[in-house]
């Protein structure tokens, strides 16, 4: 695997949309060619090389390419946009849409990321060592197709509307989450090791939520079904089991009515 390091040298005045920083866009390109890839600052289209120092050539394919992003990229959006293979490491904190529409590969963000990370993610692995913003693994604005595959691990906290319209895949959040966890979800699994705020699983028709800490206020649409012993992410414990959202339509699978499941650790 070849490694390309891009280091922020001339921070943009406006927010920078760097939708070409991905192993897919870099694959098969030399250092000079990578520096010529387009980025957008406001309504101006310029080159990656205007802001970043590029060192190293990419591998022949995305799978053979690793990118390391260094320097202050707090005003850079879309890192890892649509990546399908390879690796991307972001050493600092960054802005919106990290790993959005990603379908494969491994993306490691060592700092915090802002909202809409892993929007409509289909596959691959996203690890966020800091905190995640709002709409992690959610659908794009207006869309009904959120995260459908892959894995997300957040070592810190996550914001609101995590997993909105999620249909598949798995998310683990070691810290707390804000309101509206897995709203409208139709599949997938979210494990929250910390606390959840209110409106957990609102209008959810399928999928599973595990909460290890507290829930501020339970949704009235979730119905208690007793207690169960479960092993979740290596932890054995007793969980209170709820099904819901009773106010929503209910799908049928093999003749049985499908509900979303919510497990809260006791």
């Amino acid at each position, binding site marked *: 695997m070849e490694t390309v390091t891009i280091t922020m040298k001339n921070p943009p005045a406006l927010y920078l949309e760097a939708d070409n920083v991905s192993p897919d866009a870099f694959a098969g390109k030399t250092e000079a060619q990578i520096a010529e890839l387009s980025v957008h600052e406001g309504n101006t289209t310029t080159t990656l090389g205007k802001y970043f120092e590029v060192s190293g050539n990419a591998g022949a394919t995305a799978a053979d390419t690793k990118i390391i992003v260094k320097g202050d990229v707090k005003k850079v959006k879309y890192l890892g946009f649509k990546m399908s293979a390879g690796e991307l490491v972001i050493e600092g904190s960054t802005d919106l849409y990290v790993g959005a529409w990603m379908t494969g590969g491994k993306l490691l963000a060592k700092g915090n990321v802002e909202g809409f990370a892993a929007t409509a993610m289909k596959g691959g692995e996203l690890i966020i060592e800091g905190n995640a913003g709002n709409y992690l693994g959610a*659908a*794009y*604005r*207006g*869309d*009904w197709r959120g995260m459908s595959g892959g894995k997300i691990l957040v070592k810190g906290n996550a914001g609101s509307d995590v997993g909105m319209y999620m249909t598949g895949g798995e998310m683990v959040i070691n810290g707390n989450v804000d309101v509206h966890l897995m709203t409208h979800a139709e599949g997938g699994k979210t494990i929250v090791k910390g606390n959840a705020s209110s409106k957990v699983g609102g209008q959810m028709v399928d999928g599973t939520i595990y909460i290890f800490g507290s829930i501020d206020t339970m949704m009235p649409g979730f119905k208690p079904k007793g207690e169960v012993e479960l092993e979740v992410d290596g932890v054995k414990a007793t969980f209170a089991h709820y099904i819901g959202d009773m106010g929503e*339509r209910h799908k049928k699978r093999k003749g049985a009515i499908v509900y979303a499941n919510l497990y809260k650790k006791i």
Partner: protein
Amino acid sequence: MSEYIIKNGHVFDPVQGIKGDKKDIAIKDGKIVDKVGSGAKVIDASGKTVMAGAVEIHAHIAGPKVNLGRIYRPEDKLFSCTPTKGMERMGGGASIPTTFKTGYEYAKMGYTTAMEAAMPPMFSRHVHEEIRDTPIIDEGAFPVFGNNWFVLEYLKNHEIENTAAYIAWMLRVTKGYAVKVVNPGGTEAWAWGLNCLSVNDPVPYFDITPAEIVKGLIEANEYLGLPHSMHIHPNNLGNPGCYQTTLDTLALAKGMKANNKFGRETVMHLTHSQFHSYKGTNWGDFESGAKEITDYVNQNKNITIDTGNVTLDETTTMTADGPFEHHLTGLNNLKWANCDVELETAAGVVPYIYSPNISVCAIQWAIGMEIPLMMKDPMRCYITTDHPNAGPFTRYPRVIKWLMSKKARDTQINAFKHKDKVLSQTSIGSIDKELSLYELAQMTRAGPARTLGLANMCGGLKPGMDADVAVYNFNPDKPVANPDDIETAFSRCAYTFKSGVEVVRNGEIVNNGHKRTLWVNVKVNDNPQVMRDINEKFIKYYSMTQNNYEALGHHFVPNPYALEVDATHV
């Protein structure tokens, strides 16, 4: 204005019966002429196909429900935006493009005239503002009448003269083009939580049936002598077994004769017939009724249809058939928007994905193919996608590819997940017919122009007609190596001329043209009763005054073209 001569192209013009002969087309002062001077700019069309600009008879491209779709589907613009480029302003949207993108895309495909198929009269100002902002193409808009309180009250007593006077007033204040009917009576019933699924279901409160509404509106249409026939989306759209309701609706035109000075010979236009040609009793035994519908239309020469081809895309359905959209959101569980328009109509919007992996969608695709291939008279069947309901209009080149190539259809059929079901529930597998370029010109130019009453103006290349010309990179002398070449050729014109202005060159917009708003100005005898009824309804029921109702003046209709109709003699 410049003179042009388009030399050595293979010309297809049903108006003059030209079937691919090499012929020069001369343009002067915005019109097709016999000859031009030696200074005329020469366009080399050798090895290319030359047709008149195409005419869109039914699309939802302007107005409040289109805009509602744009507003509540930001995801439709997600990866479909194009930045400013040359003459073009930025555009976006896949199934519900922005106004500018709409104009550019039509022109690039060789379309020069398009009709907005459902204008809510109360929002005609909005419709005209969007039409104004859609460059290049001439546009008209059809106000909807099939659920209008005035119409229901007049036709309950069979008052044709009053209905006609009301239609004339409405066309004038809304700058409308034709009489459109959507789910007659059913959309009004929807305001009561009900629907009319057959032509004999009574409309609540008004106590009139869809059959009486349809017959009355045809009579009023011919009483006035409007350019276009009554244009109908019948009851019971999109349900298995609906073909019977469609046949019942078509039978209402029996014995009716066209009366107009525009050369139109028909009295009823059945739109998006694909959605109305379903047999079966549920989605499991769902099958094609294309044969029954086309047999009837083939025999009854006072009816025209358009296809409503499913293009197998993700799209946005929108119709003034409010109850149908509510039914649809229950089927696919996607977001639903609904709007009631006071005394006049309603509308609903729901996104829809026509997936090739779902048998119903694949059968709908096949029915859309069967209808134009089974129609014996291409002058009475027009290609549409009921944009954006069965698919975006930008897919016309693909629909043309499927219709012109059995090989392309077979490729698609083989790609369906439920291929066997498509072949057992439709007859598409046994149809070998491939549309010729001449038939294509009939179905997309001469035919729709004649039915719209525009036969003297567009849809042909006869000297004296508007110089709307499309030149395609398609050589009819050469065998088609790959059917995809057809799609490529019809996607981007080598040249498009609109009213003698070169608007597209090599698939790029080079001029924004001088688009016009087509509307119909009907003179009728004074009718104090209808004027009193209008005043009274505005005072009693409308939430706006008449002063705020009319689409008038340069802001709304900056470049009007009125078709004059004198109905005072009757």
